[in-house]
């Protein structure tokens, strides 16, 4: 079967291209060579379990890992600037003027826990209008009008009254919406969302996911969406990158990935998610063993100790390279992918 991604071909030129990104915290490498790109109007989901490096990757793009961590190698190519030349964000000073000018109108981020991302001592209105006045040069009055529009757009009832509300006066879902409005304040070209619905109840999560999908469609934003929930990926993503221990082990358009996962880790992850449909499983499929620590990475393929298809003398010795399928839409990092990608 040929690949069918979401029927929005052809793939436009990327807005962001990340090549060989490595991020280290002291002696430990949390991201060990990651490549991906995102085009405007598209959603790339980075999915993986805790400690796989998905959040660190997202933060590195915003250059928010310093000073605790360091981008040690790779390029973060930004095509969203005025010039035709891409700008390498990895080469910029993380606290310098260029990077600061980019955060807000270029790229913005939303987080899992709005209560710790929102300021407790500033009103929602202050937090919304500050970036507009700073980056867009709007007057107080114009910024307030835009703030009201944005709050209404993200579905906050009675938006004008909410301008003077503090974060603690809003419910969880409303806080998450307020944070999305703040991220959208300067119409960013790229929205980075780090588990924005994980702390929400399912009905609220459904509303927030619908909202994000709508915004991407309407505004033509690109979105990098970090999650551990494959259900969310299936409902929202155009492309999916599965991460394990600091690497992308498989990347593919969303239908291809769910229809025919190639990497044994992707296959195991998909099996371990219980669905609401189909026969009820007697037992859930688990992945045996534990995620190894970054301080003691196994030799060869890092997944081999938990992989049911690992071959002795190969997977426990050689680190697999990333291979792409003929159509170039899918990449997999596995020695044995030929053997069992049916």
């Amino acid at each position, binding site marked *: 079967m040929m690949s069918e991604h979401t029927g929005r071909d052809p793939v436009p030129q990327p807005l962001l291209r990340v090549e060989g990104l490595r991020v280290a915290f002291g002696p430990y490498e949390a991201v060990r060579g990651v490549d991906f790109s995102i085009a405007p109007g598209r959603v790339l989901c980075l999915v993986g*379990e805790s400690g796989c490096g998905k959040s660190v990757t997202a933060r590195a793009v915003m250059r928010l890992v310093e000073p605790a961590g360091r981008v040690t190698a790779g390029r973060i190519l930004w095509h969203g600037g005025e010039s035709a030349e891409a700008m390498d964000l990895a080469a910029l000073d993380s606290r310098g003027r260029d990077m600061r000018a980019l955060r807000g109108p270029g790229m913005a981020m939303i987080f899992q826990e709005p209560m710790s991302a929102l300021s407790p001592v500033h009103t929602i209105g202050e937090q919304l209008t500050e970036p507009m006045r700073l980056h867009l040069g709007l007057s107080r009055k114009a910024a307030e009008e835009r703030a009201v529009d944005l709050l209404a757009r993200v579905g906050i009832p009675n938006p004008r009254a909410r301008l003077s509300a503090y974060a603690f006066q809003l*419910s969880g879902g409303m806080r998450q919406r307020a944070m999305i409005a703040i991220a959208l304040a300067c119409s960013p070209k790229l929205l980075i969302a780090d588990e924005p619905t994980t702390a929400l109840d*399912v009905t609220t999560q459904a509303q927030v996911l619908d909202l994000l999908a709508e915004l991407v469609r309407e505004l033509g934003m690109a979105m990098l969406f970090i999650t551990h929930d494959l259900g969310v990926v299936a409902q929202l*993503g155009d492309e999916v990158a599965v991460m394990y221990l600091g690497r992308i082990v498989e990347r593919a358009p969303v239908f291809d990935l*769910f229809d025919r996962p190639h990497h044994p880790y992707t296959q195991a992850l998909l099996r371990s998610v219980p669905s609401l*449909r189909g026969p009820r499983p007697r037992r859930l499929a688990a992945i045996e063993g*534990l995620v190894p620590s970054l301080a003691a990475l196994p030799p060869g393929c890092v997944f081999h100790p938990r992989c049911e298809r690992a071959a002795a003398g190969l997977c426990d010795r050689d680190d697999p390279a990333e291979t792409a399928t003929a159509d170039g839409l899918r990449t997999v990092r596995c020695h044995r992918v030929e053997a069992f990608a049916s």
Partner: protein
Amino acid sequence: MTAEPILALREVTMTFPVRRGWLSRPAVLRAVAGVTLDVRPGEVLGIVGESGCGKTTLGRCIVGVHPPTSGRILLRPRDGGPLRDITRRDRALQAELARDIRMIFQDPFGSLNPRLTVFDIVAEPLRVHGEGGDRAALEDRVAAMLEKVGLRPDAMRRYPHAFSGGQRQRIGIARALILGPRIVVADEAVSALDVSVRAQILNLLQDLREEMGLTILFIGHDLGVVRAFCDRVAVMYCGELVEVAPAEELFRAPAHPYTEVLLSAVPEPDPRLRGQKRRIVLQGEVPDPLARPSGCVFHPRCPAAFDRCRNEAPELTSRGDGRAAACWRHEVVRSAA
């Protein structure tokens, strides 16, 4: 089919006084409102609902953390015989029940004392209940229990920080099961775990349940997990039970509009369902538990509400097929299903 219950809740209500600001009079928050439910021996009963629906408070009432404000909790004695009222517990009764009803907590990091070794943690219930004899005998029992939950016996010499989330949850399970309880209340016991590890722990609980004949009250919010793990499911909204049904049935054809809404909101791991799944968008928010709506608690948000729902509160009514729903429309919904 309907076995005699091992645990029965009768109109259990738990209220908390809440003071909003120092000048106002305290208001009454009804966290659990008149819950009546039979728990059958050997079953896994799921209790689901969104945050603030009272599922955790209900679990705590059963374990004995809070005595309910009103209503009764009844337990079948170990030797069979008639149900015994365990609503009000003095120290002696609480100590006795602590053998029968144990709890597994959500947070594998917060629920284990970091200054105790795994041996101390798992052996503590034995010591408190004056069981187990000398150190060597205790160690034997702890070692056996650790093996049962899939940990090596030498884990007992180490401290909780040396273990991952999934391993800590195994330690919590060992502590809960070492006294050989009959009922386990698992409050979001796998919610903090990664998917691959979550499946390991659920399978472990499934094995232990068969081996030890446990009855499990599984409090959770992940409906996929609840469907796979539970025999029956009780759905709570605003402190009330709105539906109780066998898991298979509940997920196939929900009887209460709120259950339907919940199921429709779950993002399913299948991109083909994108846009096809009819998502029911709920209006408004969960009502303030201090200002409960009149009539049915769900009526202000219910897509199917009519006049009667605004004025009269429906009771949880059995539909005769092992299912019960608290909804004036359940007959209508049923015929449409």
